[in-house]
């Protein structure tokens, strides 16, 4: 989280160095898509928070559908991002184009990697919650895994306005 905080700060500072370049570059991004992505992660976080509650009160049968929903949200986020990257590459934009795009691609790519790890964690939790009863240790795995997912959501909640909204 500290590393991402430093990245955020570096980005905002770099934007201050050349606001015109950043503003012009941001015209290539589609805000509505990023809004959809934010809503996808917020909804999948809601599902994960509900998983933790369900597991804690012994309703493990509710956990799996919620985890699947969260995973679908994560996968949908990836799809939207891939579409976005494809469009940018199609316009011959890449991390090498200018400073804005360097930050944009690196930050979103790092986030995507963490999202992928998060999806693997959710898949592991799915395998865990199949049984009727979980041990206290297993419950704590669900809580920790859930927190990791929320952190992925939090990173995006900050990236969204920084990259797409602030001009």
């Amino acid at each position, binding site marked *: 989280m500290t590393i991402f905080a430093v990245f955020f700060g570096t980005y905002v500072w770099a934007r201050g160095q050349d606001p015109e370049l950043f503003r012009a570059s941001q015209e290539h991004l589609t805000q509505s898509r990023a809004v959809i992505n934010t809503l996808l992660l*917020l909804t999948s976080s*809601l599902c994960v928070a509900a998983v933790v509650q369900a597991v804690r009160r012994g309703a493990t049968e509710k956990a799996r559908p919620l985890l699947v929903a969260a995973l679908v949200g994560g996968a949908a986020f990836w799809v939207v991002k891939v579409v976005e990257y494809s469009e940018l590459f199609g316009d011959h934009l890449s991390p090498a184009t200018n400073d804005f795009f360097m930050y944009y691609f690196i930050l979103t790519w790092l986030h995507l990697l963490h999202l992928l790890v998060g999806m693997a964690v959710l898949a592991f939790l799915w395998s865990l919650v199949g049984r009727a009863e979980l041990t206290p240790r297993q419950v704590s795995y669900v809580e920790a895994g859930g927190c990791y997912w*929320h952190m992925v959501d939090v990173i995006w909640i900050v990236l*969204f*306005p920084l990259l797409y909204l602030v*001009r």
Partner: protein
Amino acid sequence: MRRLSAVWAVLVAATLGSWLLGGGHGAAVVAIAFWKVRLVGLYFMELRTAPVPLRVVFEGWVVVTGGTLIALSLA
């Protein structure tokens, strides 16, 4: 679950609100984002009922990171 859904609705509203507010209000949009982060931490990550040190670290991150970004946005 009801409380979680209510928090989710607020987060969605804040997201749409930031989008409508748009680019000219950079500092406000960043501030809203960090308020959203707090909601996720306090309600989804259950920090409201967590041991105080955990909550302090989280709130500290929000204040320091958010504050720095808002200051940089205004500069």
